[in-house]
């Protein structure tokens, strides 16, 4: 029974999870990716921190609306924050974001050219499993998918339990390809089970927290303490940013402040939240935690979300977030999460293909003398699996590569990035249906390899032709190197798939016919 449950919830949510995991793996390197994809900043240097009060004063004189909420960047290396002072016209960073610095002569310089939109696109694809419709609406779907994902994990383990000892440490690479895929699926699933359970449960909460809070508040007795608001009576001068940084260093030496957010409202005066990280602790947001600071004295007023300064309850809570984001333990964990994310994507891809194969076998039981062909649903699911998975890969690669070229002719970067992704994605799905899963898989794998090679190609173009694109050097070359490795993997898989589809038994989803074209075998053999 649990095998049926595992199959069905897997089929229903597998493809959405593939997109979430592939895009999620890439978001582990969102910062270098954004730096790779962002134009050289308009300002080459930040206004010195000591001169920031002057800068803020001039900004507020010229743009009084910024007084409600503005941010002061502290860490100059932060690619997402290319100016000392930033503010947005809309709530939560929506609307136009302005960037301001002081020129050498002390005059105010303001522009609205933000960092690349491509990192945010990949992040949105991850959060909304590739469906970029209304956020609230999609989150209901994501929550349901995450719950099914949890059920799939539990049922998968139950199915595996009886043969666990026999199957676990064995990868039967041989004639029976389905057996090999099943062994791989089991091994991946079981060894990354803790990771998957964390992801499933945190994703349920990320999607449904409003529902959960609302039902607890309406149905249960409230017994928490009321929130405490400090009254600020007299008007005083706030400390300058560099003084606040110095005060913070005294109070929490391990805390590395990234930026300050000043927030002013008439009824409670000026409030200050400092976002920052502590390399020895995880944090609640992917890149930072938050400290509440008194802007007049520099005293810490709230350390509930401050990495390294939390009590046990809040630290426990933060651990849920940082286990999802993988923002603890530095680069080794970052790479581990990246690989676990990719492994997760493989798990869902193999899971779907396994179902298709065993679905046919099951139907053949008792009818061995007859030809049992793939059913229409199997053919559709095969095409969907291949088209959606590889379309997502090719789409993300293409839209990343476009980042260095788009500014040549357009300012609407975010819209173009999304347009490019969806064009490639839907073309791939259509192609998979037109050509069938087997041929489609080969061609789309090659297409993914080519699309991924576009990434280092535009970097090369930028190096050769001045005026086209840019190269920042440093860790951004990691993006190009990873793209080359990725493209190599896709080409290798394409070669393997060519072999597979010509050796596949008749009626397999991979079967395309006996004739083997010489070029394909040569290509396949070379890539081994």
């Amino acid at each position, binding site marked *: *029974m*649990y095998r*049926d*449950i595992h199959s069905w919830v897997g089929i229903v949510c597998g493809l959405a999870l593939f997109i979430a995991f592939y895009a999620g793996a890439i978001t582990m390197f969102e910062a270098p990716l954004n730096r790779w994809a962002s134009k050289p900043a308009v300002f080459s240097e930040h206004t010195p921190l000591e001169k920031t009060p002057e800068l803020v004063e001039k900004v507020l004189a010229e743009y009084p609306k910024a007084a409600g909420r503005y941010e002061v960047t502290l860490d100059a290396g932060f690619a997402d924050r290319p100016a000392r002072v930033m503010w947005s016209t809309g709530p939560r960073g929506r609307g136009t974001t302005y960037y301001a610095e002081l020129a050498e002569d002390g005059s105010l310089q303001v522009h609205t050219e933000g960092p690349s939109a491509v990192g945010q696109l990949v992040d949105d694809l991850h959060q909304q499993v590739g469906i970029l419709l209304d956020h609230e609406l999609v989150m209901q779907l994501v929550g349901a998918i995450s*719950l099914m994902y*949890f*059920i799939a994990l*539990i*049922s998968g383990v139950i199915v595996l339990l009886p043969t666990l000892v026999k199957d676990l440490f064995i990868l039967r690479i041989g004639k029976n390809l389905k057996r090999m895929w099943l062994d791989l699926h089991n091994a991946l699933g079981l060894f990354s089970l803790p990771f998957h359970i964390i992801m*499933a*449960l*945190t994703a*349920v*909460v990320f999607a*449904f*927290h409003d529902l*959960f*809070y609302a*039902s*607890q*508040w309406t*149905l*249960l*007795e*409230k*017994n*928490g*303490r*009321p*929130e405490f608001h400090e009254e600020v009576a007299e008007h005083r001068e706030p400390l300058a940013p560099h003084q606040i940084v110095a005060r913070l260093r005294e109070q929490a030496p391990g805390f590395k402040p990234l930026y300050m957010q000043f927030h002013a409202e008439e009824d409670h005066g000026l409030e200050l939240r400092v976002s920052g990280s502590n390399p020895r602790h995880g944090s609640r947001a992917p890149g930072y935690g938050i400290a509440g600071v008194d802007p007049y004295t520099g005293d810490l007023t709230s350390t*509930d979300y401050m990495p390294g300064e939390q*009590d046990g*309850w*809040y630290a*426990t*809570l933060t651990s*849920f977030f940082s286990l999802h984001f993988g923002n603890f333990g530095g680069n080794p964990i970052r790479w581990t999460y990246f690989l676990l994310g990719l492994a997760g994507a493989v798990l869902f891809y193999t899971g779907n293909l396994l179902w298709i194969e065993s679905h046919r076998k099951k139907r053949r039981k008792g009818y061995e003398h007859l030809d049992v062909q793939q059913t229409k649903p199997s053919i559709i699911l095969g095409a969907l699996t291949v088209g959606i998975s590889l379309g997502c890969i090719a789409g993300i690669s293409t839209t990343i590569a476009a980042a260095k070229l788009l500014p040549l002719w357009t300012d609407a970067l975010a819209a173009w990035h999304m347009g490019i992704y969806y064009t490639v994605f839907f073309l791939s799905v259509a192609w998979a249906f037109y050509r069938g899963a087997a041929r489609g898989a080969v061609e789309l794998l090659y297409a993914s390899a080519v699309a991924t090679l576009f990434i280092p190609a535009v970097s090369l173009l930028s190096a050769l032709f001045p005026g086209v694109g840019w190269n920042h050097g440093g860790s951004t070359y990691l993006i190009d190197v990873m793209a080359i490795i990725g493209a190599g993997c896709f080409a290798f898989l394409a070669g393997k798939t060519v072999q597979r589809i010509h050796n596949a038994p008749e009626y397999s989803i991979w079967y395309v016919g006996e004739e083997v074209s010489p070029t394909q075998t040569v290509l396949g053999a070379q890539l081994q």
Partner: protein
Amino acid sequence: MTKRLPKAQQLSSEHWFGKASAGVFAGYLLTIAICGIFSRFGPLEVGFFSAQAQITMWLVAPVWGLILSFCFLFQSSARAWAWLGGASVVLWSILLLFRFVIG
């Protein structure tokens, strides 16, 4: 272990809809009640975004997830509804009793 159960007692996937809906609806009410028990008699809290209140909210995911995963073990849809619904009624009675009668 190796002895097969009689057909009538074997679990099948047939009644998945009834069992799953019991897990979704009755299971959710039961989950909220369990959170209520922890916040009424345990260290957790509800409301006002304290750490304990946030953990109470987080508790929903694993508890509901486990109920949804194992609700298929009930013999029939009716039993699933009866057990999960019954457990909800018991826990909710305790909670309401302490809230309105005992105080």
